[in-house]
């Protein structure tokens, strides 16, 4: 029983036939060849497979692809654009926040979701946001520093605007960050 689903991944629409047993992680990597998203444990424990689904970070190994039908997915491949790397990626490079790099795509996506919703996080908020992302190499200090630095860099070059809350259960203070390219990044928490 294979089912046709539509996924918007990094703003591009895909139609894919999937078996209901296959996870979003498998479809991203094996069908769409978006191998930036990593498989660590395939059990929800490590966060290497973190992607944003309608703006929210989720473990893509826990999501059946059929469940995400009609959804908007952001992966690490969507962070950079023709103008260059995302501020978070620059900050990770500058701070040496990656060693083997296996956790990095998941870390970046969790950090992006955090900064999309909370442009000025405290260190505690950063650590809570990244608590579901395991890193076996760095000891986390440089990752936390990089996220803090990215938040400061983004604050220096962004205008923030209040956006209406789209979905029940969203943090009421949820914000859309309008970045220096003048467009609202996807994943503002709105269900598509």
């Amino acid at each position, binding site marked *: 029983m294979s089912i046709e689903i539509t996924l918007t991944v990094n703003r591009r629409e895909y139609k894919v036939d999937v078996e209901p047993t296959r996870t979003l992680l498998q479809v991203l990597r094996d069908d769409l060849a978006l191998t930036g998203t990593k498989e660590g444990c395939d059990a929800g424990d490590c966060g290497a497979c973190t992607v944003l689904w309608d703006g929210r970070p989720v473990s893509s190994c826990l999501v*059946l692809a059929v469940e995400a039908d009609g959804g908007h997915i952001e992966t690490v491949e969507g962070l950079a654009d023709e103008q260059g790397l995302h501020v978070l990626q620059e900050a990770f490079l500058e701070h040496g926040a990656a060693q083997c790099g296996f956790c990095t795509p998941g870390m970046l996506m969790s950090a992006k979701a955090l900064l999309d919703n909370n442009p000025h996080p405290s260190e505690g908020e950063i650590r809570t946001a990244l608590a579901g992302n395991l890193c076996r190499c760095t000891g986390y200090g440089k990752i936390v520093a990089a996220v803090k630095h990215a938040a400061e860099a983004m604050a220096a070059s962004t205008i923030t605007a209040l956006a209406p809350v789209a979905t029940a259960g969203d943090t009421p203070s949820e914000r859309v960050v309008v970045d220096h390219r003048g467009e609202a990044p996807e994943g503002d928490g709105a269900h598509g």
Partner: protein
Amino acid sequence: MLEYHRPASVEEAVGVLAGRPGSVVLAGGTDLVPAYRAGRQSVRGYVSLRGIPGVGELSVGADGLVIRPLSTHAAVASHPEVWARWPALAWACQSVGSVQVRNLGTVVGNICHASPAADTASALLTLGAVVEARSLQGTRDIPIAEFFLGSGRTVLQPGEMVSAIRVPPPAGLGGGAYVKISPRRAMDIAVVGAAVSLWLDENGRCLDCRVALASVAPVPLLTGAGAAVVGQQLALPHDGTWELVSGVHDIFAQAAQLATEAASPISDVRASADYRRAMIPVAVRRALWQALGRATPGEWVIREGVQA
């Protein structure tokens, strides 16, 4: 071949459950998907909830809180009214897994999975929640204290699904807490969990107090330990501040003792029975103090000789 159904209403969903025995409700999938992929589970098909309008909404009103089948831990824990009125539940939801798990996992899935460690189950037990079960035969209300039969087992019948959890409004000046003892602060299930909800009248006398435990019995356990606290004067109001009365420490110690006696912990990979038994009073006392603090906002006055 695994079936996948996406009904457009709860009514249609219970129709599929009845007509395709062996099908199970798929909520957030955080228990089901890894179990299936690890070969630990055989099911005929999944009944997805994502096609049902409003199925993730939370309603908060004078009648209390209504949690629906796709209400996630993140949705509950980001609702300011839940923090204000049902703090034990907000703290329990916030303690589940990680951001990634809380964005998928649901409160209804948490209780239906019926792990003795389920964080939200003990909080809901202290709040007197009612589980609404729906089938082709109709709807029935199940007090949550009667919902769990054993590890992984509930009173739900084949063809039945949970359509809502209703949590009554607070019964006075409310405070609550959920204290989870586990080796890691995130991404770990409870070695011992203690949920407390307590309500005071405006003079600081305890109107009601309930204590429930996670991971210390075959089911999430509502203890009778609140009886040591109910009716007791815990604090005295003094224009905007609260004076702690002497004896609170002893009252809480007695409740912790009663809770420990109600438990029947076992040894497993996470902890020994002895360690669990030693940690129950610690978790219960902490939860009681936190709950009292939340029920009596503002400054505490502690006179000499009163042990806090």
